[in-house]
């Protein structure tokens, strides 16, 4: 351990990451400070379960639904891993929104933490992107028509709407090209962007320290 510390400075890294000073908060207010870590934890669970699911999933209209059924019915603990990913996705949205509300109502986004807030907004949008693209992947009736509705909403944008919808769908119709597109976004682009923004967000959180709970003025 001494050998490792001397060559990595790990004890100082540990000190500044985990043994740093955080504001004193009591009772329910203290729990509000856990929402960010909870989001990070759920993200890690999603990454691991997602990688496992990708081992037996095909983003192809002919086989997507059957491969999801295969995971649920024939893979050991497949339905558990799938369930974790599905409920984790829902919990992720809930946690991220609560975290955002906490930061907003405590005014924790103010100087000098604006950039942390901006990174957080980016992460929120990425979570929305994960939800939208991931919802299509099971390729059941609900997934198909939810995405059809989503694409139609995008299509209502003035002037550029039809083009946006076609880019989303990978063509004029919702089909094979849409599924591969959404899959690529769900497992390649969005995770990479999310990791980048998480690193920035966490760096800023630690750099600025966590803001004190607001004090009631008389």
């Amino acid at each position, binding site marked *: 351990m001494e050998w490792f510390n001397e060559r990595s400075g790990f004890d100082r890294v540990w000190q500044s990451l985990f043994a740093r000073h955080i504001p004193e908060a009591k009772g329910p207010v203290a729990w509000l400070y856990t929402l960010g870590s909870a989001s990070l934890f759920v993200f890690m669970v999603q990454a691991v379960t997602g990688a496992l699911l990708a081992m037996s999933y*095909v983003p192809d209209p002919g086989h997507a639904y059957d491969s999801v059924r295969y995971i649920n019915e024939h893979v050991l603990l497949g339905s558990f891993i799938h369930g974790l990913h599905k409920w984790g996705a829902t919990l992720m949205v809930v946690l991220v929104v609560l975290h955002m509300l906490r930061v907003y109502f405590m005014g924790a986004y103010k100087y000098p933490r604006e950039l942390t807030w901006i990174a957080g907004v980016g992460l929120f949008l990425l979570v929305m992107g994960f939800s939208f693209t991931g919802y299509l992947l099971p390729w059941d009736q609900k997934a198909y028509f939810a995405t059809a509705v989503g694409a139609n909403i995008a299509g209502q944008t003035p002037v550029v709407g039809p083009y946006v919808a076609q880019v989303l769908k990978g063509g004029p119709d919702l089909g094979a090209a849409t599924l591969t597109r959404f899959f690529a976004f769900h497992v390649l682009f969005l995770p990479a962007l999310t990791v980048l923004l998480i690193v920035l967000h966490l760096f800023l959180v630690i750099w600025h320290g966590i803001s004190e709970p607001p004090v009631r003025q008389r």
Partner: protein
Amino acid sequence: MSSGPEPTKDSDLSRRGFLSGLIFGLGGVITAVLGGAGTAYFLAPAFKKEAENWVDLGPVSAVKPGMPAKLEFVERKRDAWVTAERRSFAWVQTSNGRDFTAFDPRCTHLGCPYRWDSGKGQFLCPCHTAVFDVNGKVVSGPAPRGLDRFPIKVVGGRLMIRPQPEKVKA
């Protein structure tokens, strides 16, 4: 917490020690459950047995003693979420009408389909002149071993095979 006794410096379990124990304990439990489930999911294929896939070749009466018959079949094989359909055939022979042998229709030399020559009473491969007798033993030619066999059984007067060849030891 606002109430409770203040921990002394040399007490056995300080508040900090208790909490960090709790964090690492719970963290360990969560890691074990998630990691264990993930590892089981990942490693499960190692313990999966191949499903026995018996294919119907038709009635026993299709094969006359001493007269090997070329029987066609369609194999439906479950490959994870895909069901693959494969058309193929097998050579089935019997000497007494009760015990049957099914041969893989590919020559053991380089995989050509051979044929039965009823005049000579031998299986002849057109590619490199390999010759096998009615029991699949090598008579002459370049074949390294006798004809590969499919497991075969008779169920209710019908021939059933598993179309995965078993190599005959030389």
